[in-house]
């Protein structure tokens, strides 16, 4: 409860600070640089949750525990959601900054591939009737999909020149002005908190749902037996 209140206060502060406290960076048309405080954390959270989904899938395959599958599923859902948010926010700003909604910037390409992969992940889940099969297949696909990520990161950027302000605003590099850096890091924190909060809600919901279906309860029993053996 307290955590929730703190999170909402923190979020509000960050939004206010993003517009009033931090200065607009040079090299961006108008105020467009403020995208940094929303768009980048969204992309970061999306990446984080895909990673989480992949790890949970591995755990599911090793242990066949329902919890791991629920985690993989909800992380993938949230990842897709934040990925969409990052795409939409980026796209809106792109119209202002680069003149058109879509330019096939390497970042745009890779985010679209991510969207496709996780869209496919859900298509697969809905196409497999048997519950056990569905979980195994989804986990296998999540792992295979993540295997391609390094290729996306290292290969795609070589193809087209990037429009992205790669080095000017990279927070890891010195040069970001301290005010911007402060708000940016705060925003990262806020988005991560938001992510964890929604994830826990989703997990609770999944657990409640599965309690209504007797099949799942029985399965969990086997899962424990399987672990004993």
């Amino acid at each position, binding site marked *: 409860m307290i955590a929730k209140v703190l999170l909402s206060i923190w979020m509000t502060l960050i939004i206010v600070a993003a517009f009033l406290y931090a200065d607009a960076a040079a090299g961006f048309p108008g105020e467009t640089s403020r995208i940094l405080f929303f768009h980048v954390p969204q992309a970061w959270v999306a990446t984080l949750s895909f990673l989480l989904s992949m790890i949970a899938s591995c755990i599911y395959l090793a242990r066949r525990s329902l919890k791991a599958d629920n985690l993989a599923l909800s992380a993938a859902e949230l990842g897709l959601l934040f990925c969409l948010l990052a795409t939409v926010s980026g796209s809106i700003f792109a119209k202002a900054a680069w003149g058109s909604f879509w330019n096939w910037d390497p970042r745009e390409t890779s985010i679209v591939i991510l969207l496709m992969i996780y869209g496919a992940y859900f298509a697969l889940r809905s*196409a497999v009737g048997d519950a056990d*099969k569905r979980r195994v297949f989804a986990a296998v696909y999540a792992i295979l999909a993540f295997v*391609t990520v390094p*290729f996306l990161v290292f290969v795609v950027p070589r193809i087209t020149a990037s429009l992205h302000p790669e080095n000017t605003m990279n927070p890891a590099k010195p040069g970001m002005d301290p005010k911007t850096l402060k708000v940016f890091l705060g925003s990262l924190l806020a988005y991560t908190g938001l992510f964890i909060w929604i994830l826990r809600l989703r997990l609770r919901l999944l657990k409640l749902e599965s309690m209504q279906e007797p099949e799942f309860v029985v399965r969990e029993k086997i899962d424990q037996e399987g672990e004993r053996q």
Partner: protein
Amino acid sequence: MKNGRWITETGSSTYLSEAVAIWLRDLRGEFRTRYAVNAILMFAVTTLIAVSFSIGSFRIGEAEQPFLYAVLLWIILVFSALSGLSRSFVKEEEAGTMDVLKLSARPQAVFLGKLFFNLTLLGALELIIVPSFILLMNYEIELPGFFAAMVIAGGIGLGGGTTIVAAMIAQASARGALFSVLSFPLLLPLMITAIKGCEKAAVGANNPGWPEVRIAVAYSIVMIVMSLFLFPLIWEE
């Protein structure tokens, strides 16, 4: 002693020999029905002619040719592959032979056998498409060695990335379209690499060490090794 035979005998057989048996059977079945080859060739020939008819008949700027041609070639290859590669597993499921195969073969052998079969199909496809594409489009390639290596490595990657997906969709309800949906994103990094490689080969850019070929080979190896580990999970579920 009869009973002893049951245990010892299987030791003499390797994954490879079993995989080869599966490969040869698929080839033979394919040769008799020509279903996959047809699906693939039909699409490939149709697009090839359509593309060459449409692109070939008007002028594209010299500078843009290498890139555009590389893109077209790989779109034709990838989509032709997607139209046929899932057949080997889907047919097994639809004909009701999957159960018997599950009871008699080791999963890794099945995976390898099907992979070999898909690679054979891809090889045949490339043998037909690539030369005809080059001829029809008047595609000038400065570095034929690099180009060939790129096409071969890309083909292996295509097979490596799709075989396990085919096994999954064969057991799922939405087959045809699901296959492209699941495979395509997995193949995109490879496709982008291969396009870049073919473009460079056409232009004749100085390209020491053939990095694109290496990337494609790395992709293939990673995909095949991962699949070998993951396949038994899918097969036995």
